[in-house]
């Protein structure tokens, strides 16, 4: 399995740290940012992760805005998959509403998260990520 990387964007530093720690323990490479603009800067600098994992409600730039900006990045700078992790409690939300590939709700079950990400990158076919198609 090729090494996978994740960029975690959450305004809660402690949560971002724990998620990163979890992935690192699994052998992933993980980077943490606490806001949308920081994430964009990192992507523009050439850090091209397998996954962008972002929160939705963040001060300054929301997760939706960040995703929209990411979509406009040149193809080589985009992450392969975009995953939304949100504290929203509405069960009716779908990833399509945010133009994302997957949507996870907090509190995250880490095993379920990893299993799903594994399916996306390996065992299962890739999701309908338009960024990849362009």
């Amino acid at each position, binding site marked *: 399995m090729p090494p996978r990387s994740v960029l975690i964007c959450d*305004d*809660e530093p*402690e949560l971002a740290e724990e998620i990163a*720690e979890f992935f690192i*323990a699994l052998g992933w490479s993980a980077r943490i940012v606490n806001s949308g603009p920081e994430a964009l800067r990192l992507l523009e600098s050439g850090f091209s992760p397998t996954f962008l994992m972002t929160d939705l*409600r963040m001060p*300054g730039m929301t997760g939706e805005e960040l995703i929209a900006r990411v979509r406009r990045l040149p193809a080589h700078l985009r992450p392969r998959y975009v995953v939304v992790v949100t*504290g929203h409690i509405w069960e009716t939300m779908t990833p399509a509403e945010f133009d994302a590939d997957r949507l996870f709700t907090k*509190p995250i079950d880490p095993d379920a998260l990893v299993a799903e990400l594994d399916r996306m990158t390996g065992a299962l076919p890739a999701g309908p990520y338009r960024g990849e198609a362009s």
Partner: protein
Amino acid sequence: MLIATSIGMLVATLELYRSQSAQQALLATSIRTSGWVAYQAELEFVNTHMALEIARVIPGDAQLADLSLRMEILLSRLPILYDSEEGRMIAQIDLFKPRIQEIERLLETCLDQLQSLPPDAAARASAVSRWRDELEPYGPILKTMLRESVLFNEQIGERERQLAETPATIPVVLGFGSGGVLIMLLLLQLRRDRRALGEIRTARAAQQGLETSLKSLIDAVPAGIVLVRPGTREVLFANPRARSLIGSDGGHPDWAALTSAALAVSGETESDQGEDRKPLVLNRPDGRILSLLTVVRDMVWQAEPVKLIAMADLTKLRDTELQLVHASKLASLGEMASAIGHELNQPLSVIRLAAENALRGLDRSIGRDVTASKLVRIVGQVERAQRITDQIRRYGRLPSSQNQHFPLRPALDLAIGFVANQYRLAGIALLGSFDLPAGIEVSGDQTMFEQVIVNLLVNSKDAFAEGPRRSSAPLTVHVSAKIEGSVVAISVSDNAGGIAQIVLDRLFQPLVTTKPAEKGTGLGLALARKIVRDMAGEIVGGNRDDGATFVITVPFQIPDCAAPGGPS
């Protein structure tokens, strides 16, 4: 008046009687005397006539001397007829007066001639004859006078006799007359008195009827009515509703609290718009708290000026209002459920992952320090979650019905803390500027006051999501508090574009909202005003600059124990 008239008439009668008697006596005297002087004159005229006849026949010196004497006597009698009081009583004396004076002049002439008579007897006799002839025609005058006088006297005498026979006719007639008039007047007065008495009886019956009706009315009204003597505050009357409100009869000492409180409240300076209905909270001895609305009026009761205290029992209404406030709070909690859920999920996520990482770390035998740091993090996140649930519990607490002093600054901080994370997530800057004396307190229910502030802050936050903004300035909500005279002014202002003109003048009316149905109950500001007014304060709202501004003004206290000094 009747008595005065009667006495007046009696006095008039007596006076009339007295004057009549006097006149009668005077008349009797005068008329008798007048007859006498006429008689004397006539007698002397006859004597003179006799002396003239004698002297004509025998004109000797002695006869002439006698004649002279007679003529002198007659001359002295004649003026008495018209020049004395007695003579003036003779009927028509003024008509006789010129003729009598002619006699006097004739006599004076005769007397003059008598002094110079010649001694010749024939000549003497001729002179005397001439005098007799000259005097002769005057005889009938004196006779007429005497006759008239006697006739008149006889009439007077007849009248005197009549008067003597019926001595008190006139007074008696007058007495009867006046008595009759008196009786008539008395009868008239009696009739009038009877009529007046009838009217008084009718009026009294009507008044008693009115009083009875008024009493029944006062007994029937659902409001408590108490009549109090102003000075002593003694309860004169209390209707059944008032008795049931206080739970005892009028004489009971429990009433003193009510009457003095009601009168004291009514004596306060007229509040807004001259409203004279005053809220009054009364602690009953049995522990029940009454919310009363009182009106005090001056009135007259059984001819005595009293104070009327009318009381409407708003306790149930107040309880209902509190329930409504509570329901509204729960509703707004529902509105905020999503945000609260999101907020709670944050620490839960951290806890879940930290626990997971710690467990995996145990498998890989990572150091105790790492595991310990995970556990510390978990405890911290649990505390964070607990703060959130505390706020919800606090917010959802049933409000109390009693005003209590509470410190203003912590209440504002709690309200701001409740929405701070939502603001942070929405990217709205929440700025506070407090220029308050240390320990400043306001009076009311703290959780309800906090709800008002939360409500305003949530409204401002929601406003950014609704209307298009004119300005591109950063989203900002400013909370400030400062002293303005006798009140503390707390303002919440945003730059979210302002309130729509269509709702601006109905802001505080219930069920007026600019929010979509799932977000607003339309009760928030109506309840906010109710809560602030219960704190003896006021809330106003409007547009300022590029947003809405709400200002709450409430009275404040600074407890003695608080350190005096500058703003906190």
